[in-house]
């Protein structure tokens, strides 16, 4: 059974069909790519899968359970975590606190515990710190735990966002253009990291990306979106050699 499955997912904005009959089936442990020209509806698909938008039609299942049109919070609790195309960090919180905020639903103590600094608070905070530092270490951010998230260099901000998403202990991780704005060296490093996350956390990853080197380097399967519809899907090498895909990217000559 597929881990994440969407069937006939569609959404219209004022008559315009931004995503039309989108189907996807992602197996556990897969590294899956969603590509397509600008404005093809890739981020809209992410927003549908994470509850930012409610689909006009279609269903989404996670581990066979229907999660269509659930709220973002519940979807995260169910096991979907994401990053954003335009980085959305908690900029006035420290790097450590960015991750700790994401541990919110996994290390729980009451408001009373928090205000009165009960033993439960101490124990929980200690465990949170350890867990957060562990995650930061994976991304080489542990040395920067104390500084404000907004003071991180761009590439590290992207990594922090991934660390934060992982902290919610998702079943599937959705990365929206993780390599955007990175130089080739950083992109190479990021590819390593993504592969590492998949192996270390046994994670399933769906990513949107424009960087073809990254896509062909790490994705096992691809779905190509064009004008809100699926153009083609399949093994990465086959898809990238498909003349229709090349035409969609380079335009009709």
């Amino acid at each position, binding site marked *: 059974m597929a881990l994440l499955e969407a069937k006939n997912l569609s959404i219209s904005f004022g008559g315009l069909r931004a995503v039309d009959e989108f189907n996807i089936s992602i197996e556990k442990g897969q590294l899956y790519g969603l590509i397509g020209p600008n404005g093809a509806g890739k*981020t809209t698909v992410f*927003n549908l899968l994470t509850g*930012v*938008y409610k689909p006009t039609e279609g269903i989404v299942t996670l581990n066979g359970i229907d999660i269509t049109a659930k709220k973002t919070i519940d979807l995260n609790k169910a096991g979907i975590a994401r990053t*954003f195309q335009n980085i959305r960090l908690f*900029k006035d919180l420290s790097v450590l606190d960015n991750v700790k905020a994401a541990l919110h639903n996994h290390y729980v103590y009451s408001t009373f515990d928090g205000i009165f600094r009960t033993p439960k608070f101490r124990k929980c905070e200690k465990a949170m710190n350890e867990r957060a530092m562990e995650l930061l270490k994976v991304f080489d951010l542990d040395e920067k735990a104390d500084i404000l998230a907004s003071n991180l260099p761009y590439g590290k901000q992207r990594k922090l966002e991934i660390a934060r998403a992982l902290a919610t202990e998702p079943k599937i991780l959705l990365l929206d253009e993780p390599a955007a704005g990175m130089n080739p060296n950083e992109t190479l490093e990021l590819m390593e990291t993504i592969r590492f996350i998949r192996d270390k956390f046994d994670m399933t990853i769906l990513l949107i990306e424009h960087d073809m080197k990254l896509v062909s380097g790490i994705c096992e399967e691809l779905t190509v979106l064009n004008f809100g519809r699926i153009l083609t899907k399949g093994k990465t090498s086959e898809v990238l050699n498909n003349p229709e895909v090349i035409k969609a990217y380079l335009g009709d000559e």
Partner: protein
Amino acid sequence: MSFLSYLIKGISLGSVYAIIALGYTMVYGIAKMLNFAHGDVIMVGAYSVFIMSTSLGLSPIFGVLTSIVVCTALGLTIERVAYKPLRGAASPLAVLITAIGVSYLLQNIALLVFGANTISFTSVINISPITFGSNGELTISGETIVTIIAGIIVMVGLTLFVNKTKMGHAMRAVSEDKGAASLMGINVNATIALTFAIGSALAAIAGVLLCSAYPTLNPYTGAMPGIKAFVAAVFGGIGSIPGAMIGGVLLGIIEVFGKAYISSQMADAIVFAVLIIVLLVKPTGILGKNIQEKV
């Protein structure tokens, strides 16, 4: 008959709210900010008329025109000095708090210049009332007639302006998407300034009508009507021009009926209960659109 006369009074008060609400709603639509000082521009407008017509004894028409010029200039200055620098600020609270500061500044300048005492305002409208029924059961004052007519003219004029003129199209484009509008060659800053100018000119008209119908004036005169007009704008659907008009008129009727049939002291509370109910039941208001934040 009293029901009918309350209804007409409500529509008249509502027309004033509507004219003020138009200013709020346009500015909110285009600059995405709640211009707290809008109500106090009304007060400045009313004082301008008072000085021109009562103190200097000039013709009321001249007073009204002066008031429009003063308020427009004031609106433009506030936008330029206090709001424009904060465009793109990290926190949306920044411009809101500044707007409160401006509102407070205007009130306190008026307090220093004119004093805290309420002065009686001489109506600028000189039309004899219309009486219905053999014993004058229903009397509609000149102020009421002029206010309702002014409300209709403003509404129609503004709708035509926004839908038919180039500047109106620019305003709509900027309120939809600033980035795209500027790529289309629209001067975003000038368009926002224009919106403030129109809103403030409307505030001047509202000030004259308000103080003619309720002939008192003090530095806080604009505050409460300003807030209620914002409620009206939310009621009708913030960002919508016909919404502001409908919301304004409905709120005016609710307030007058509340005063007449429930309790005069509780009238304000009733108006705000309306706001709470609207926010609970339909936060986008009667004609409002649901605006999705881009992710």
